[in-house]
Each structure stands twice: as C-alpha cells, then as structure tokens.
C-alpha cells in the first residue's frame, strides 16, 4: 500500500488531474450518472475514431468499391467487437495500475522484450503517421490546396493541440474533431443505399464475392488492420492513466470504449456503403491513389455535396489520427525512459514527450512531400503491417491482463482470455495466409 505523497511533492500534472478527479467524485457523490459518463468518456471514443484513420477509410472504400457491402458490412462489425474486447483490457490495466502500456511491459518483462515491443510500435506508428499526412494532403488536393500547405497546416494543428497543455482540454478538442468522422454517414445516405440489401448483408454475411483470391485476403487483412492496431493499446491505456480513471470508473470506461466502437463502426460501414456505388457502376479502383480519388470518382453517384463530405471526412480521419498516433508514440517513448509522460505537463518538464510527437509529425509530413514518394503502395501496406504486428502486441496485453500481482481482482476472466486468444490465433492465421499467397501468388488466384 502506497503512502499519500506530501503536497510539496505534487506537480502541475498531479494538480490538473486532481482537479478533474474532484469533478468526477462530486458527480458520483450526487449520483449524477449522465454527468459522470460525460466526464469520463474520452480515451475510448478517441482511440476508436482515431483508428478510423486515413488508410482505414481508404481500405473501407476500396473494399466497398471492389466487393460491395455483402460480406464486409457484418465483418466490420465483428472487427469492432474484437477491438472492444482488446481495448477494454487496456482500460482495466490503466485503472488497476495507473501505468502506461510501455512501462508495464518494460517493468514486468524486462528491456529485452520491452525493446521488441517498442520497435514494433515505433515501426508501425511512423509508417501509419506518414499515411495520415497522405490523407490530409489528398483531402486538401480535392479542394485544390497545394500539398505543402495542407501538410504544414496538419503539422501546425498537431503542435497547436499539444500547446493546450491540459489533458482534458486536449481530449475535448479532439473529441469535437472526432465527430467529423461521421461525415461519412450523410455521404453514404446521399448514395441512396438499398436498406434491404444492407439488412440482408448484416443478417446473412452475403452475398459472398464470386472469387475469394489474394485480393480478398488482402482486404480482410486490411480491414482487420483498420480496427485493431498496436498504437491503440498504448494510447488508450496511457490516456486512461493520464485522465486518472480508477477502479470505480470502470463501468464508464467500458461505456466510453463501447460508444467509440459503435460510432467508429457506423462511420466505417457508411464509407463501405458510399463506395459501393462504384462497385454497382463497375468502376475500376485498382489504380486509385488515395481518398481524394474516391471522392472525385463518387461525385457522379453521391453528388457534389456527398463528394465534398467524403473529402472532408478523409482530412478529418488523417488529422485526428495524426494527433492520437503521435501522442501514443510520446507516451510510450517517455514511459520507456521513465520521464514525464502526460498532456498535463508544461514544456520544460515534457521535452521528450512533446518533442517526440512534434518530431515524428514533422518527419512524417516531410516524407509525404518528397516528390515521387510511393504514397499509394504505402497506404495499402500500412494496415497489413499493422495487423501482422498486432499478434505479439496482443500476447503482451494478455500476459499483463492475466498478471494477478498488478491487476488484483481486475485480472482477466476465462471469457476475456478465450476471446483474446481467439483474436491472436485469428490474426496470426490471416497474416500467415497473406504470407503464403505473397510467396505463392498463383495458389488461390487474384
């Protein structure tokens, strides 16, 4: 049992977190449940809508345009259920230990495995961050904005968000931006979707595509990578700690994660539905480079307003993810070096924390501006890589969530372990299948 530190040891980070906790305790004391939920939502909504990022929306659009809604509408719901199962564990870990994911791996399993986990995270995050700026640039191009302007503006917004220097302000600002992910819903409605076909797809997982070849497997993998990725584990656990959630807040933490998953699934299916107009019109999207190509191609089918909403949605998806992913890198890196890791820090005490987010954002934006950079191939490859890196990340998550010494009574139950184990096996199997068809492309056809 830890003793309460003397007030003279308290930092700005402690005071700002304590102020928010006071509001939570007051709301709980007065049994104002709605206010309590409103105070405690944030990490779950941000992680789920943040994962509806640039490459994810392009993956959903490519899927809808290539295969229609048949199999993939219910598949997307399944992937978000998987995401909920996984992310709920990070809420429990954060509330039980008050420590971030990276520091728990390092402290419990040592630097050897810790550096491997960090290498996976850093590799995935840098690649993904590049594709977020590709999305920002692509959305800007749709409106005739020069790439250097849109990318610079994106970097400036990331820096501005960090300048807020208060976790709760940062979180609320990002949540307002995150609502922009729902721009894909009116875009889908403007495509005049067949409601009966959507209900049929959700109920029957059909119709199945005529050919189940390499392209289908790649899109399965990309759709999984669009919903569960390593940065989400690191981000949500650290955000839960930064926000100050405790064991008493677990119900609200779960509600937060579930609301995020539902909103993100709605936006993802809306993107699939909007893009399925291209499938119905037999438009070849194989040479599309980014979200802007989809917006332009969709104009005849969803109108100028719909296409504009689609392009704005692509910009939002890239911008929000740029902020959440760069912050997940900051949390993880600062935790590893055991230095300040909170959005409540001031700049002088958070040089590494803020420097990591700003540095990676500037580097990622710079790569996008390199003339001739293979942006299309990168966008498609990123979700696949994220899925492949997910299996080892999930094993660490399961190990930590089963660690009774740190989790106490919040340790994983049998059901959570069964679901988590099934997800690890499923993701590894799809990844292995992808490997086989990459090496032997003729095995199951295109």
């Amino acid at each position, binding site marked *: *049992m*830890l003793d*309460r*530190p003397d*007030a003279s*040891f*308290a*930092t*700005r*980070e*402690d*005071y700002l*977190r*304590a*102020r928010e*906790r*006071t509001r*939570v*305790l007051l709301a709980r004391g007065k049994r104002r449940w709605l206010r309590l939920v409103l105070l405690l939502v944030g990490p779950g909504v941000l992680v789920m809508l943040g994962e509806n990022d640039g490459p994810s929306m392009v993956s959903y659009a490519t899927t809808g345009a290539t295969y229609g809604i048949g199999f993939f509408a219910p598949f997307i719901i399944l992937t978000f259920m998987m995401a909920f199962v996984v992310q709920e564990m990070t809420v429990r870990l954060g509330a039980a*230990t*008050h*420590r971030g994911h990276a*520091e*728990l791996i390092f*402290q*419990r*399993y040592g630097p050897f*495995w810790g550096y*491997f986990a960090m290498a996976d995270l850093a*590799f995935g995050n840098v690649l993904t961050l590049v594709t977020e700026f590709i999305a920002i640039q692509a959305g800007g191009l749709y409106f005739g904005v020069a790439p250097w302007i849109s990318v610079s503006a994106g970097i400036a917004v990331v820096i501005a968000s960090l300048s807020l220097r208060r976790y709760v302000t940062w979180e609320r600002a990002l949540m307002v931006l995150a609502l922009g992910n729902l721009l894909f819903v009116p875009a889908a409605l403007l495509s005049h979707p067949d409601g009966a076909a959507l209900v049929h797809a959700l109920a029957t997982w059909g119709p199945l595509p005529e050919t189940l070849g390499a392209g289908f497997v790649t899109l399965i993998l990309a759709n999984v990578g669009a919903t569960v990725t390593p940065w989400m584990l690191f981000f949500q656990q650290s955000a839960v*700690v930064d926000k*100050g959630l*405790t064991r008493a807040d677990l119900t609200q933490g779960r509600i937060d994660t579930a609301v995020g998953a539902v909103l993100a699934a709605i936006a993802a299916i809306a993107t699939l539905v909007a893009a399925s107009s291209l499938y119905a019109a037999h438009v070849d999207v194989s040479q599309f480079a980014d979200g802007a190509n989809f917006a332009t191609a969709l104009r005849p089918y969803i109108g100028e307003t719909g296409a504009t909403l689609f392009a704005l949605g692509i910009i939002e998806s890239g911008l929000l993810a740029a902020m959440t992913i760069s912050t997940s890198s900051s949390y993880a890196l600062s935790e590893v070096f*055991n230095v*300040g890791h*909170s959005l409540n820090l001031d700049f002088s005490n958070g040089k590494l924390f803020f420097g990591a987010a700003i540095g990676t954002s500037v580097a990622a934006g710079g790569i996008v501006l390199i003339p001739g950079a*293979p942006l*299309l*191939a*990168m966008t*498609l*490859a990123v979700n*696949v*890589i994220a899925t*492949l*890196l997910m*299996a*080892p990340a999930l*094993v660490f998550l399961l*190990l930590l969530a089963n*660690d009774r*010494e*740190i989790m106490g009574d919040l340790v994983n139950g049998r059901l959570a372990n069964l679901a988590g184990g099934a997800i690890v096996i499923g993701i*590894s199997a799809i*990844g*292995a299948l*992808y*490997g086989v068809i*990459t*090496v032997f492309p003729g095995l199951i056809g295109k």
Partner: protein
Amino acid sequence: MRYDPADLAALEPAQFASATRRALPRRKLSRGVTLLLYGLRLYVLIAVPLVVYAFVHALGGL
C-alpha cells in the same frame, strides 16, 4: 495558475506522478510463454519482409 492542495485528496496515492516513477518488480516468464514470444518474434521477422517484398513488387507494377 493557482493550485489548491485540497484537490489532491481526489487522487489515489498510486496516481501521483512521483508514485508512478517507481518501477514494479520484474516477473519471470515461464518457458512456454518465452517460447511463444520467440515464435511470434520469428513470425514478425518473416512476415514483415514479405509485406516489404509485396510493397516493392507493387511499386514495380505502378
């Protein structure tokens, strides 16, 4: 910005920044878990170059 020390009562002792800087004790991994982690490491080391190969292959096709 003015801080009210009374607010600090809202934090659990383990939530203070100074408390989270103290490392937790190491946990020994069982042989089975160690093997699983090595297996997954091998999986990543094989799978990621395959994606890079597919990436380079796709570039050639552009």
